[in-house]
């Protein structure tokens, strides 16, 4: 039996990188069908069909499925589930919202944040903020998984899978979308950026974050932040990298004024190269950094930006 992969779609736009990485993760399981849900998702469905490894795109152009509300989207997945051995999705906020609901409706466990698929029943996932890796074997008839995409390469394009329209399931009418307040920046998206520059409490103020952003722009990087920086109001919530924020694994991660608490490391310690600048030589971030510099950020970072 095949795998059904729920595609992340926001305002009709496919989260291509996340979906392409999740595709690579589930490819060893065999045939993959991609589900694009929501009215106005025609372009997303067409784009999904170009991803290598997709055998078929299921497109549910139903108004109730816009904004990925958990109740109607879960109802649709449950209706489609009998034809599949695995239901999966990249571990985005939407998938984390929807898939556990689907699993419970099917009376199976959800396997969250899978980092490796060993075989059809055996999966690896990080626990305790990434301080341990658990290998689990599922005895459930249908496996419901969310994929931590950071460790997988994105599947390429060039495919031309057929797109089949499917009806949406009945909307239970329990919830209603009101509004989105999304921050638009011209920068690359945090979870898919090859370079990430993050600031922590050491940045000191919202204005201070300009030195982080300037270095990020110089490197064509996405901007991240530690929880401390977000809590202090220096940076918006959706920039948070860590156990409870986003998990990133770029080629280069630059940590500025970040001490390196367990919860932050959980979100970035799989980065290929880590560079840290901190004025405290004892900061735990230096234990995971490939290159470190003990210095005052406000002189060192602008100088670094200029010299790179």
């Amino acid at each position, binding site marked *: 039996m095949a795998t059904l992969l729920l595609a992340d779609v926001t305002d009709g736009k496919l989260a291509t990188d996340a979906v392409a990485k999740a595709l690579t993760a589930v490819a060893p399981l065999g045939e993959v069908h991609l589900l694009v849900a929501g009215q106005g998702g025609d372009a997303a469905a067409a784009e999904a069909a170009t991803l290598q490894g997709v055998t078929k795109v299921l497109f549910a152009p139903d108004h109730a499925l816009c904004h990925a509300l958990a109740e109607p989207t879960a109802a649709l997945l449950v209706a489609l589930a009998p034809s599949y051995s695995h239901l999966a999705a990249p571990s*985005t906020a939407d998938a984390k919202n929807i898939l556990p609901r689907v699993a419970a409706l099917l009376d199976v466990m959800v396997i969250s944040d899978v980092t490796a698929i060993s075989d059809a029943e055996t999966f690896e996932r990080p626990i305790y903020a990434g301080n341990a890796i658990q290998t689990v074997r599922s005895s459930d008839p249908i496996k419901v998984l969310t994929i931590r995409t950071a460790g997988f390469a994105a599947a390429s394009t060039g495919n031309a899978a057929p797109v089949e329209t499917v009806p949406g399931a009945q909307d239970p009418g329990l919830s209603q979308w009101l509004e*989105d307040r999304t921050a638009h920046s011209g920068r690359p998206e945090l979870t898919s950026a090859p370079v990430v520059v993050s600031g922590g409490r050491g940045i000191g103020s919202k204005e201070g974050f300009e030195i982080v952003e300037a270095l990020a722009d110089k490197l064509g990087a996405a901007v991240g932040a530690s929880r401390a920086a977000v809590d202090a109001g220096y940076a918006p919530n959706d920039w948070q990298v860590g156990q409870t924020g986003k998990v990133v694994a770029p080629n280069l991660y630059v940590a500025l004024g970040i001490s390196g608490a367990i919860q932050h490391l959980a979100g970035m310690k799989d980065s290929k190269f880590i560079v840290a600048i901190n004025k405290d030589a004892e900061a735990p971030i230096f234990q995971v950094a490939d290159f470190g510099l003990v210095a005052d950020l406000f002189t060192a970072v602008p100088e670094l930006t200029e010299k790179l």
Partner: protein
Amino acid sequence: MKVLVPVKRVIDYNVKVRVRADGSGVDLANVKMSMNPFDEIAVEEAIRLKEAGVATEVVAVSIGVKQAQETLRTALAMGADRAILVVASEDVHQDIEPLAVAKILAGVVKEEEPSLVLCGKQAIDNDMNATGQMLAALLGWAQATFASELKVEGGQATVTREVDGGLQSIQVRLPAVVTVDLRMNEPRYASLPNIMKAKKKPMEEKSPADYGVDTAPRLTVLRTTEPATRKAGVMARSVDELVDMIKGAGLV
């Protein structure tokens, strides 16, 4: 209205966990345990709803080993009215899966009939982020996950949720399950007099069998290992040296 708050006893968030050498799990013997940080936020929000006159009663519930009663006493000291302890395990190393927890909670909900269940978005031990969603599914209720703001009025809850690109507002019909995110509030500390008073508040003890729930795991843990360690890095003495290192490694 009544608010039910599930709380979990987990390893304290500041403790660096140790994986047992035989791969059988994480060592929890003689390790400091605390209330899951997200659950503290859920308790705080429930108490604020009570202080605002929206909630009439706050019931805390915990499922696990007997020692979880300490976690419930903390919730009572923060301001919860009473507690339910479901003893589902003898061994602290046996983590009850979210599906079983959700089924037990669904049983508690049927008895208690709360209008709102407020829980943490994830436990910092298993990092599952599933119990609230699973509970909402089993009850056929609406769910609002990763909430940073909650307004309850007229049989509806308006919830601001933390999503990938920013914030999203949704409205859910009550009864509903709301899972809370970090930025919903700043949990209060229990004062000494309140800790003393909490000892006199009622705590009922139950078992999974009381709710007809089988807690056998669906996921067999084959092994638990240490993550790959990173090799020691190099310290630069100046910005120039750092620039050379970064350029030398072909990073820019």
